[in-house]
C-alpha cells in the first residue's frame, strides 16, 4: 500500500510469522511492543498497541485456527508522521458476518469463557480497525494508530 501524503513515509517495517500456539500471544505483543518502542510512544500508547495485538492474535488462535493450526502473519509498519500500521493475517476459517463479529459481547466460542470483547478493545485502543475476511480463506485485520508528539507532551506539562 502506498502512502497517500508526501509527509507520511515508511521509515521501518518488521514482518514475522508465528504458529497459532497460545504461548505466541505474549510473544507477538512483546515483539511488536519492542519494535514500536523506537517511535518513543507513551507508556499508555504502548499498552494500547500491545493489548490490541494480543486481541487480534488471540482471535486467530481461538477462532481462525480453531479446527486446524496454522500460521499467523504480522507486519508492523512505522511511518514518518508518527503513525503506525499493524496487519495481522491468518489463513483460517474466516468470518461469515464481520458486522456481527465486531459487535461487543459477540462470540462464537460458547465452550470457553470468552467475553466477545476482542474487537471492542481493538477499536477502543486503536484509531482505526479494518477487517477483511473471506470465509474458508482467512482474515486480515489492520490496526492504525497515530502516536502523540513527544514535544507536545513536554509543552503541556
Amino acid at each position: 500500500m502506498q502512502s497517500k501524503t508526501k509527509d507520511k513515509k515508511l521509515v521501518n517495517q518488521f514482518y514475522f510469522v508465528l504458529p497459532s500456539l497460545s504461548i505466541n500471544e505474549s510473544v507477538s505483543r512483546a515483539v511488536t511492543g519492542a519494535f514500536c518502542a523506537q517511535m518513543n510512544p507513551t507508556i499508555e500508547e504502548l499498552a494500547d498497541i500491545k493489548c490490541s495485538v494480543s486481541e487480534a492474535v488471540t482471535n486467530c488462535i481461538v477462532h481462525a485456527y480453531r479446527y486446524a493450526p496454522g500460521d499467523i502473519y504480522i507486519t508492523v509498519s512505522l511511518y514518518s508522521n508518527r503513525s503506525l500500521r499493524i496487519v495481522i493475517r491468518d489463513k483460517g476459517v474466516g468470518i461469515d458476518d464481520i458486522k456481527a463479529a465486531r459487535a461487543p459481547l459477540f462470540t462464537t466460542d460458547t465452550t470457553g469463557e470468552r467475553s466477545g470483547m476482542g474487537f471492542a478493545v481493538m477499536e477502543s485502543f486503536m484509531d482505526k480497525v479494518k477487517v477483511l475476511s473471506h470465509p474458508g480463506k482467512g482474515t486480515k485485520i489492520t490496526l492504525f494508530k497515530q502516536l502523540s508528539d513527544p514535544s507536545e507532551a513536554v509543552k503541556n506539562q
Partner: protein
Amino acid sequence: MIRESATVTVNNTDTCLIVTINGDIDHHSARTIRERIDSELFFYRPPLLVLNLKNVDFMDSSGLGLILGRQSRAHELGCAFKVINCSPRTRKIFELAGLERIVDIVDTE
C-alpha cells in the same frame, strides 16, 4: 517445556480466600489461572473469594471472561466475590465491558 506466563498465589484465612495473580492475563494464561482458582475454591469453600490483581502486568479481554466466570463459580457455592488492587490500565478494560456494574472492583490504593 513452555514457561507459564502467570502464576497464582493462594492465601486462605478464616474469613476469605485471597488469590493473587502474578504476571500476564491473556487467553494462554487464563486457562491455568482458572483451573487453579476453581480447585482452590472447591477445596476451601470460603465465605469470600478475593481476586488480587496487584501483580498483573498485562490483561486483555481474556481477563473479563476469567473474572466473570470466577464470580459465577463463587456465587454457585454461596461465596461472595471481590476484585482488589485493580490498576488504571486494567480498569480501562473493565469499564469498556461495563464490568464494574456487575463485579465489586476496588482500585489500587
